[in-house]
């Protein structure tokens, strides 16, 4: 679809938000009492923030929830009955005000979840999702989208991308049919574009991801991994805040005769992740797990999924308790 550009005034945004919330759930960022930015379902418009650099958790929860029930079951003495989850009950959701890095990550997740077999839970959630993105007018030292082929105004993954104007109004780029369907609901709120300047932040390019991918081909045995991961404590914070990390664990939970099978986020940073039943662990120390994290995103994924496994949001670094700064490490890797 050819992109069209419209003007949406500050006061019209609230009308649009209310209109959309009549028929859909809205997933939007708010600032919590402890100053963290978190996405919530259906917050009051007055609580929605337009000033955040990054939320603590990414928005992947909307298509890949931290816990997803896969089916329920009932056991009798002789048999088990499996009850599928009704995917049609997955609601229509508008993701509101998410930044370009987060929205680009939906493509990355799709390259994993719909690689050969389509993951029906993920695919249905994505199908029911409309993304109204918000380009970035703020950034900090942790941001490195420009090093991963993106930019503060990238439209990848958005159905509509809002860009703030000097006077507080927004330009809206209508990018997809889904985006167009939103415009059709509230046509009068979308006006002709003005000559007002769009505000974008500048994000310094720190490394070339193509060069990093090339370097990684011969870096497997490099002492770099041990030297740079001694301080890693092996928690899953980086993976869980990451918009593109897609690993999950599957568990059954039974209570009496009834139970459910669900999946929940997992992380390659955990020792248990690769522990074999025999007791052997191919990644028995943290440096091997840290290497896996970088290799997966910057070498294996470009090779196998034709997509980079990182969008440069910087959450893994800002959320890390021991300052494992990924862009610093990738910059260093490029130069080894």
């Amino acid at each position, binding site marked *: 679809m050819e992109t069209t550009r419209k003007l949406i005034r500050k006061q019209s945004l609230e009308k649009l938000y209310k209109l959309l919330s009549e028929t859909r759930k809205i997933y939007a960022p708010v600032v919590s009492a402890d100053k963290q930015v978190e996405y919530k379902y259906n917050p009051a418009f007055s609580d929605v923030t337009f000033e955040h650099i990054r939320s603590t958790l990414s928005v992947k929860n909307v298509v890949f929830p931290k816990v997803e029930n896969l089916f329920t079951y009932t056991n009798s003495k002789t048999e088990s009955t499996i009850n599928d989850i009704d995917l049609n009950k997955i609601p229509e959701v508008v993701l509101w005000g998410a930044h370009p890095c987060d929205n680009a990550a939906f493509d990355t997740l799709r390259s994993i979840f719909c690689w050969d077999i389509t993951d029906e839970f993920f695919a249905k959630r994505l199908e029911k999702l409309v993304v109204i993105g918000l380009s970035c007018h703020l950034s900090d030292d942790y941001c490195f989208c420009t090093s991963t082929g993106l930019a503060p105004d990238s439209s990848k993954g958005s159905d509509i991308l809002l860009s703030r104007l000097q006077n507080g109004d927004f330009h809206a780029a209508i990018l997809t049919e889904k985006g167009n369907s939103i415009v059709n609901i509230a046509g009068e709120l979308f006006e002709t574009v003005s000559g007002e300047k769009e505000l974008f932040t500048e994000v310094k390019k720190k490394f070339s991801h193509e060069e990093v991918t090339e370097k990684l081909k011969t870096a497997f045995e490099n002492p770099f991994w041990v030297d740079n991961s001694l301080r890693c404590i092996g928690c899953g914070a980086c993976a869980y805040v990451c918009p593109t990390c897609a690993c999950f664990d599957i568990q059954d939970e039974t209570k009496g005769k009834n139970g459910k099978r669900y999946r929940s986020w997992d992380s390659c940073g955990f020792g248990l992740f690769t522990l074999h039943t025999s007791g052997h662990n191919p990644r028995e120390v943290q440096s091997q797990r840290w290497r896996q994290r970088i290799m997966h995103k910057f070498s294996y994924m470009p090779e196998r999924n034709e997509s980079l496994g990182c969008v440069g949001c910087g959450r893994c670094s800002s959320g890390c308790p*021991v300052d494992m700064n990924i862009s610093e490490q990738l910059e260093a890797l490029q130069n080894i």
Partner: protein
Amino acid sequence: MTNLIARAKELLTSNSVQVVIGYEAGPTGLARPAFITTAEKAEKLIYDERCIQNLAVYLTKKEVRKLGKAAIVATLPVMRSIMMLISEQQVIAENIVVLGISSEGSLLDIADIRVMQGFIEKSDLGNPSEYKELLAELNKLSPEEKFAYWQKELSKCIKCYACRQACPMCYCTRCTVEVNQPQWIPVQANTHGSMDWHILRAMHLAGRCISCGECGRACPVGIPCHLLTMHLADQVYSYFKVHAGTSDKMSSVMSTYEPNDKESFII
């Protein structure tokens, strides 16, 4: 700081230790752990108010141990952690050089474990003052209000286990949450599963938590989980008059039986 760097250089040059575990400044200005293996690199060492992470967590880490004998920059919580690790036989006292740091930030002369014990005993061993007020406020709540508070906080948990990994006392190579036959703790990070986890973690640290607050600082979603263990540290002191990490011969309060223990809760 110059004293610290000089002492680190001396230890490395004389090969008395093979690694100095301390702090360096990262590119964003945060202090972070550094593992100094040569005298030249010792110049990177810093010590200031940014240096709050409990470094004792690295003493049981496989790849750090592989580097050889370690010297460690140790404020009071780190010293108490070391004491706990020695008493639980995870660390051998003779294998560590303690570069003690006083509350004013100057280098202490900690020649051996007895000197360290002497320093610990002279220090204020209660919960840090910045948490006391919040703990007192929480204690004023009714059980229902407390439950509601923790339900709200723990519903944020994503089960990344940063709290566990950041804690020097959580050194088990296989944590209870990783045992799945039987599955003691639900794997999923829903409110129930997360409450189970945090309550279990707190109970395992009762009498062992040295109140460094590292678990709460490590939490990426800002759950004040350190208040659980700190509350138990208060409880342990009020019942047993014991502060964790004060002796290398401490028996574990929660898993030791003494003939004169009060057992009024049984009868």
